């Protein structure tokens, strides 16, 4: 009898958990649809959009620069150890260029911006929710999704690719420093190597390197995931200040996992269709 009771309890808990997850997924995609619809209908809030572009973009430049710089340097350093054994250090530029532009630039930028701006979005919206500011907006006839979520969503879509370009350039520059100062390569040789690897995978529409399509397509998707997930957790915050902390943590963890998982699937799609 106790075993049957335990089984029933376990079954009920599993069923409730599955129901909760299904409901959350449904709400998440319902929010996505509302955001997309609101992007193309009035009223719009250009002032809020500019403010969010400043917060997400300009505010994240410093950490993105640092991330790119040290990532590029450490990539060059680590690969040099292996490549020196085969006398292949002239290919350092290829390795740094390819791995940065295709993968590390978009993913690390998304993760760093999530830690900074995504957490900020969840916390700001969560605080607004628990202090009834979101309800205040609704009572004034203002749609909170349109006013609060859409500017953040669009700003993330615009700023994340730009930040990724900055991270890529800085990472390549970091690799250059190591290649020149530690490995004795010339800047010209290193940069030629970087260009070669970007050109090797071919071009889309004759002039756009496929690697660049990967490198700039992914951040758009990551930006959408970051903004939507952060706003989703922010707007469903409950339970006072403790709830705000919980939402912020959930937003960052969920976004990070979604970014990494989505990166895998996007890479698969790109390999199948573009390479």
């Amino acid at each position: 009898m106790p075993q049957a009771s335990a089984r029933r309890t376990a079954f009920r808990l599993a069923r409730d958990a599955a129901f909760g997850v299904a409901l959350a997924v449904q709400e998440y995609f319902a929010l996505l649809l509302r955001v997309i619809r609101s992007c193309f209908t009035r009223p719009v809030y250009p002032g809020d959009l500019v403010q969010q572009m400043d917060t997400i973009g300009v505010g994240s430049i410093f950490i993105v620069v640092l991330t790119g710089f040290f990532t590029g340097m450490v990539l060059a350093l680590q690969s040099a150890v292996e490549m020196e054994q085969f006398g292949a250090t002239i290919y350092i530029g290829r390795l740094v260029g390819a791995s940065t532009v295709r993968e590390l630039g978009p993913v690390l930028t998304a993760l760093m911006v999530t830690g900074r701006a995504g957490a900020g979005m969840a916390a700001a919206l969560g605080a607004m929710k628990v202090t009834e500011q979101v309800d205040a907006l609704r009572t004034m006839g203002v749609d909170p999704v349109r006013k609060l979520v859409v500017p953040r969503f669009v700003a993330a879509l615009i700023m994340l690719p730009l930040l990724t370009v900055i991270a890529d350039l800085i990472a390549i520059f970091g690799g250059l420093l190591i290649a020149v100062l530690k490995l004795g390569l010339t800047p010209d040789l290193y940069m030629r190597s970087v260009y070669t690897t970007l050109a090797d995978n071919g071009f889309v529409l004759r002039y756009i390197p496929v690697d660049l399509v990967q490198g700039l397509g992914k951040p758009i998707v990551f930006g959408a995931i970051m903004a939507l997930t952060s706003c989703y957790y922010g707007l469903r915050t409950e339970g006072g200040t403790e709830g705000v902390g919980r939402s912020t943590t959930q937003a960052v963890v969920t976004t990070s996992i979604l970014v990494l998982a989505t990166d895998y699937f996007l890479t698969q799609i790109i390999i199948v269709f573009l390479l």
Partner: protein
Amino acid sequence: MNEHGDRNEVFRSEVREEIGRELAVASPHADRTEPTVSLRDVHLSFGDNHVLRGITLDVRQGETLCILGGSGVGKSTILRLILRLLHATAGDVLIEGRDITTVSHHDVLELRERMGMVFQGSALFDSLTVRDNVSFPLYEHTRQTDEEIEHRVREVLSFVDLVPDDVLDLLPAELSGGMRKRVAIARAIVHQPPILLFDEPTSGLDPITTHTIDELILKLRSELNVCAIVVTHDLASAARIATESALLLDGRVIFRGTPEEMYASEIEYVQAFIA
């Protein structure tokens, strides 16, 4: 059920019977003018939790209805139903003759513009100055020029006994509790809505500030002829400002009448509540 629970249930059923005899469908002071806000047999349940069980209330222009009752009895919930921040399980909520429970999302936004809400915690937007907070509804819903809006903001701040030049550029965090409440009232009345809703407007305030807020609510009735619904725990405050009071118990209105009638009521629960 234990003896204590039995006695409670008996007491409640006695109260309900007594109320059934005493109460008219709406107000004993009902007149022939159309009610501005009208709740008709409104029910609200969350699963098995029945919060409201058939609320019927009418409030007309120039009236101030105070909703009284113990904690968790559903007082603030009524305000949320009026604004359709919550959906009634059953019943009608008529705003100026239109049922807000059945109109489209667009019409809900329109109807909400006819109302002003003062939240318990003021719900001022943290990141905006007093000027931006108060002018927010005007920028959202009117096409007035900056000069006209500035003039109107100064006018309402003066109306709520604040010195515009002293507070316009302050952030909500820089205001005292009483000043925040007054700014919240200014924001609620800036677009001249005919209906005002107050959720615990005097909670957490000292007696002098409470008196000031009460005076302000009286002034709103006498000078602007608004229809006001005030949720409060504060009996003294309710006695000062209410044209009528409604007392809630177990999700039902068990008393409706003027403050004088309330103090003279022989209903046991009313007497216990007043005591």
